[in-house]
């Protein structure tokens, strides 16, 4: 399966749009969402979405990296992994995910590079305002966005056009290694889940974690049902804590009012 130049252009534009969401904070730069568009453009929505869901779960914890660090980016698997999954049906989603990890690790380097290159833009932006060159300021104030979109476009375009090279590369991988990559693809979501837990988990949330495990492992409750269990626990916590700390809240409010006077 080879793709036309138009499909490559569309994937490039889709990648640019999705990656811009990283700047805007609109949640388009998620593996699940990126894969959807790639599947639509390349004509295999189902395969792409199933792969996207696999990658989404593995990457869920990324993007919340501890302050300052740039974690692996879902643009890599979202584009490259989806293309791999669509063009090679014998590849499991897990194996496609493992194969696209190097691209996920490439993207943060580009982001760091762009942020570093633009470091000096503060002074020129300030100077532009002081000299009344508002057009120039406007240009400066979008520079990261344009660079992000340009990079993502080239990335998506090139990945789609080099499908046959990607396939040739995958075909020389021996079976034992392919099996290994599938196994690793099953292990990797543990990183995403553990990362998100490391930022969210506090002692008071342990009951919620245990409940979640029981519901799935023993009761086989589907995900929407699980959400309701979570809501029940949360509301229970909220109202019971409120009762316990009502006195504290009152005394704090009284202090605030006094300070105000």
């Amino acid at each position: 399966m080879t793709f036309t130049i138009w499909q490559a252009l569309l994937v490039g534009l889709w990648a640019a749009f999705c990656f811009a969401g990283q700047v805007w904070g609109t949640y388009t730069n998620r593996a699940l969402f990126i894969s959807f568009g790639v599947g639509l453009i390349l004509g295999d929505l189902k395969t792409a979405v199933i792969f996207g869901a696999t990658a989404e779960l593995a990457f869920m914890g990324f993007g919340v990296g501890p302050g300052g660090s740039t974690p692996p980016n879902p643009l890599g698997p979202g584009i490259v992994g989806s293309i791999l999954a669509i063009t090679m049906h014998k590849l499991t989603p897990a194996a496609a995910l493992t194969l696209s990890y190097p691209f996920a690790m490439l993207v943060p380097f580009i982001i760091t590079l762009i942020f570093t290159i633009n470091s000096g833009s503060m002074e020129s932006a300030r100077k532009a305002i002081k000299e009344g060159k508002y057009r120039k300021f406007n240009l400066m104030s979008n520079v990261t966005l344009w660079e992000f979109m340009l990079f993502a476009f080239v990335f998506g375009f090139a990945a789609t056009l080099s499908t046959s090279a990607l396939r040739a590369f995958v075909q020389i991988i021996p079976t034992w290694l392919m099996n290994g990559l599938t196994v690793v693809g099953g292990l990797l979501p543990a990183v995403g889940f553990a990362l998100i837990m490391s930022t969210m988990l506090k002692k008071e949330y342990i009951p919620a974690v245990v409940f979640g495990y029981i519901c799935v492992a023993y009761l086989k409750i589907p995900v929407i049902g699980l959400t309701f269990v979570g809501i029940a626990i949360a509301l229970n916590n909220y109202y019971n804590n409120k009762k316990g700390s009502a006195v504290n809240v009152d005394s704090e409010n009284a202090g605030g009012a006094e300070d105000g006077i």
Partner: protein
Amino acid sequence: MASRKPVLTKRDYFISILRSYYLQNSQNYGNMQGTGVAKTIWPELRKIYKGDEAKFREVASSNVEFYNTNPQPYPFVTSLMLAMYDSGQSEEDVRAMKMALMGPLAGIGDALSQFALAPLFSTIFASLALQGVVYAPIMFFICMFGITFGVRNLMGYLGWKVGTSIIDTLSDRMAALADIASTVGLTVISGLSVSFVKVNLGLKYSAQIKGKTQLVTVQAFLDKIMPYMLPLLLIFFVYWLITKKKWTAYKIILLLLVVGVALSAMGILVP
């Protein structure tokens, strides 16, 4: 403190909320979102300082300074700043408020959007997608965008309405909200994590059962004791590496890659 007649309308505030999406358009390591701050409040500053070009340039260029917060609750800052500028309060006061809000809002915003909403909806809709619902990604986007758009509007409204004194109770309330979202998120995440992480032992042994020799897999044996035991242990192990050993994601991925391929080659783990 000089006072002046406010010129901004509700529409102006709404436009500044929409422009909050521009905040990170020029993100860099120099002033982070600084240039973006000046950009998000640009048209409103033009309106406030109409006819006083020098003053406009002074205020706009002073806002290019370093700023770094979470973009979702950020409209609170712009509305508050604009309300203060518009009523003629001193620029030092505005700056003090702006800087004081940077940290708390980043904390609240991260807790709510990145640690609670995003993982919650991403687990729900990814699992729906795995069950063959091809439009789950669109639903994911609509939920995430819709809710965060609502948060931005609410924060912009609150910033305009309540001003400075209420920020303590506001952050209390936001903390309670983030707490509820975290609890729901963790229930869903912990439940689904064990079923999505796949660790299958390939080991088999033969056992004498009622006089017949049968091949028993260790995996089936483990599942009898406790379902999803190995995925659970793996998640705890990785969690321990992150929190106690301070390993980076890259290092852990590399470790899992090497160990996974090796164990699979030896036949201990199977796909």
